[in-house]
């Protein structure tokens, strides 16, 4: 049994707050993934968010790269 093959993982965060609070959450999410990307072998990562009323399918996912800054 192997658990080591690469798969697509989705981390969904639902948050209630002001736009500033959402931004803080977004930065935290992005920071954790970028730190992990730097330390581990990660093929690709994307991040995005949608406001209230939008469906998840409307979320525009942008690539995260090690060179990306907040």
């Amino acid at each position, binding site marked *: 049994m192997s*658990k080591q093959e690469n798969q*697509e993982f989705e*981390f*969904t965060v639902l948050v209630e707050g002001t736009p500033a609070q959402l931004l*803080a959450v977004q930065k935290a999410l992005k920071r954790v993934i970028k730190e992990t990307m730097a330390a581990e072998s990660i093929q*690709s990562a994307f*991040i995005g968010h949608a406001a209230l009323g939008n469906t*998840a399918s409307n979320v525009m996912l942008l690539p995260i790269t090690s060179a990306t800054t907040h």
Partner: protein
Amino acid sequence: MKNNHIKMVQNCDTPLQVWLRTATKAELDQRKAALTNALYYGVQQDEEGRNIRSVLRAIDAEFSIRQDLAYARAFAVSQAKTSLSSVPLAATPKQFVSLAMVVCNADIAEKIRRRLKVVLGQTMVEHGITALHMAVSRESDTELDAVPVRPMRPHDERVLLQRLQAHLARTSGQ
């Protein structure tokens, strides 16, 4: 997506139970097919000397648990989205969904999950956020985890499942 609670339980489980809990769906399917085939040819015990019919029942039970967990996760997300869309857009504070999709192995995903839980908990405290829910899923898998994030308080998916089942029972009038 394992946590300390699951690991603690695993320590006192049989090897079969541990395997059932950690095997992928494809592995369970493959094992079920092999054992069913062996049973067809009159074999009664597997390589470990276990009764094949008992093992098949255990595999079916594991499938059932995973379906419950998958349903619970889908229910949690749909409930959250339903509650999000029921609030007027002009209301403040607003509610948002934030997604990160990562291609990596399960160990790295688990590291991200644990780190996210800590960091999001800190963010909640630092920015006065009162409601934050994190769900983790992976492609083609029913081992899912959907937990509320609260600063420094670990939760596990089985506790969430119990809560969701209780919620389902209440909302369905049972």
